[in-house]
Every structure is written in structure tokens, then in C-alpha cells.
């Protein structure tokens, strides 16, 4: 098993594989992922941007989300929850 120890979580019909940090994805391990019809790989990596740049980028992203939701009633709990998740997703 090339992929090493992994945590398998099946939820909503999706199989998620969490690999240990630093795992090298070789051709063979990629082929194994392909064999399971893997579609998306999220890779955690160090953010090399300077703090000022991160702040600028987050402000821009937040501004766009606010613009998109400008006409929404954020007193409505359902809308407010969606807004918060969109904001977190964009500014993460």
C-alpha cells in the first residue's frame, strides 16, 4: 500500500482520504487514486504571502461577498447562516 496510513470517511456518497502531512504522491499512488475515480485533492500548504498581503486579499474577498449579499435580509437566520459560510469560505 503506497498511500500509507489513511483515514477513510464515507459521507454523502463520497469517500474522503486524509493523508499524513508530508506524504509524497508518487505515480503509483496517483494511479490508485485514479482507480477510485478521485476527482479533487485539497493540499494544505504554508501561506507564503506577507501578513499585509493576506489582509488586503481577505478585505477584497470580504468586500465582494458583502457586495453579493447587499440586497439580502441578514436578519433572516437562514440567509445569515449562508452569508457567514460564504464569507468564511472566501476568507479562509
Amino acid at each position, binding site marked *: 500500500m503506497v498511500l500509507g496510513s489513511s483515514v477513510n470517511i464515507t459521507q*454523502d*456518497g*463520497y469517500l474522503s482520504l486524509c493523508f499524513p502531512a508530508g506524504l509524497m504522491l508518487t*505515480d503509483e499512488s*496517483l*494511479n490508485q487514486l*485514479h*482507480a477510485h*475515480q*478521485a*476527482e*479533487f485533492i*485539497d493540499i494544505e500548504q504554508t501561506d507564503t504571502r506577507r501578513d499585509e498581503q493576506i489582509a488586503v486579499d481577505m478585505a477584497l474577498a470580504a468586500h*465582494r*461577498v458583502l457586495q*453579493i*449579499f*447587499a*440586497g*439580502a435580509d441578514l436578519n*433572516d437566520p*437562514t*440567509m445569515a*447562516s*449562508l*452569508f*457567514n*459560510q*460564504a464569507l*468564511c*469560505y472566501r476568507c*479562509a
Partner: protein
Amino acid sequence: MMSDTSLTRDEVIRCSRYLPSFPKLITEILTTLDDHESNLRVLVRCVTLEPMISARILAFANTAAMRGRMGSDVCNVNTAISLIGVNRVRHIVLMSCMDAFMSSAAQASVPVSFWQHSVAVGVSSVELAMYVTMPVITSAALVAGLLHDIGQLWLYRFKAEDMRICQHQAVEHKRGADDVERDYHGVDHCTIGAWLAENWGLPRDVVAAIAGHHQPEESSDITLVSLVHVAEVLSNALDLGNCPENRVTTLCRSACDKLGLVWNDEIRPLFGRIEARSRHTNQFFMIGNH
């Protein structure tokens, strides 16, 4: 503000004869979904007879991911189908047919962002259909999502100047486009789209989803209506489709409840999948390069 006369169903259907024929294949695929063998026959016939669709399926099978499994290029359609699966082939066929139809139906007055938004809502509908716990047929979700704004395409094509005025009014007065359209034409793009879909013989749920995607509470018994409503809200919330006018103004609580959606931290992987797949689909079909 109101035009001289309200649009009628007869006028909409009469004008639609100047549009290219709606691909019968889409109706055939959707109406044979319950019969696996008939559905497969329709797909195989289409893939065999349509070189563009064959090429797309081969291209999909030959992406790096698929090559990794085979060790060599896939150049046979049957091998490609067995590799990528019938469900994915069905989606490629549906997307290809819609792409061809929209490209020929649209004229210069239709912005590129219209099709990109349609694709985003189609993709979002499919991902939501796979995410929610109640059964929703993904092919129906894809077609309903792709066609949800087909009434706008009709307006762009046959009432271009009125459409421009309505859009200007909607932005200037911060009103919903459908609201302004009802004032102006007596009906909105949802109703026009539903008339078209009904005339093309599309399934009842798809027609209802097109009709009710802005007001899903009026068709609360049909899951696909709630699904397409939320899919459109999500595609706007995530700013998909390269459209500066993306806005979220309403979100029907009962539609979210019906789908069992809770907007907490666990929803974010779904956002990622929708965004990634929407980008990939728009690139795959080279939207905007027509």
C-alpha cells in the same frame, strides 16, 4: 412601467419556432431514465452517430487521470464508456446537446455570462442532488439547472431592447429581474421558460423547477424545484459564472428545510466541489469560445 400587451403562451411558442429545434435526445434520455436498457441504447446511438460527442467522451477518458489507469491512450468509444461510466457519459451527452442548442439559439445580444451562469447552476444542482439525503435524479437536476433561465434566452432573442430596459430597472431600483419582467411583460422569464420546456416535452419536474426556481414555496411538493432554487442561490453566493452582477437577495427557508440543508461548517466542502466542478465544466466545454 408596462409594455402595450402582456406576453402570451401562444406568442412565446410561436416565436420559439425561430429557435433551433430543441434536441429531442435530451427528452429521450430523461424519459427513459427508469428503463436502463432503453436509456443505454439512446446513449450508445448518440455517441456512435455524433462525432463531436464521441470526441468529447474520448477526450474525457484520455485525461491524465484515466490514462494513468490504462497506460496508453484510449481511442475506442466503448472502452471510454466502460472507463468513465454510464452516468458520466449521460452527463457529457446532455451537456453537449445543451451546449450546441444554446450556441445556435443565442445571438450577439446574449452575454457569455448567461451560459456560464447556466452551467454553474447545472453543476451546482448535480452536486446538491448528490449531497442531499432524499433521492433526486442527477440527470434531471443537470437539465433543470442548465435550462432554469431559458426564458431569459427567449427574451434576449425576441425582446432584446425590453430585456435591456428591464435589467437596467432591476439594477437601478434594486429589484429582482423577475419582478421587473412581470411588471413589463405580464409574465417573468420563469413562466416563459416553463412554457418552452412544456412545449419541448420535458418531464413535469423539470418544467416545475424552471417555473418555480425563484418562488419554490409555491411548488413545495416537488424536490427538484427547491433544489434548483438553492443551486442558483449558491452559484451566486460563490460568485460563479464570471458574472459581476451575481447577487443573493432571497433564500427560501422552506426549500432549505425540504432538502435538509444546514448552513454550518460542514457545508464548505460542498462549496469547494461546486466551485471546482463549475470551473472544470466551463473549461471542458470552452464556454464563450463559440
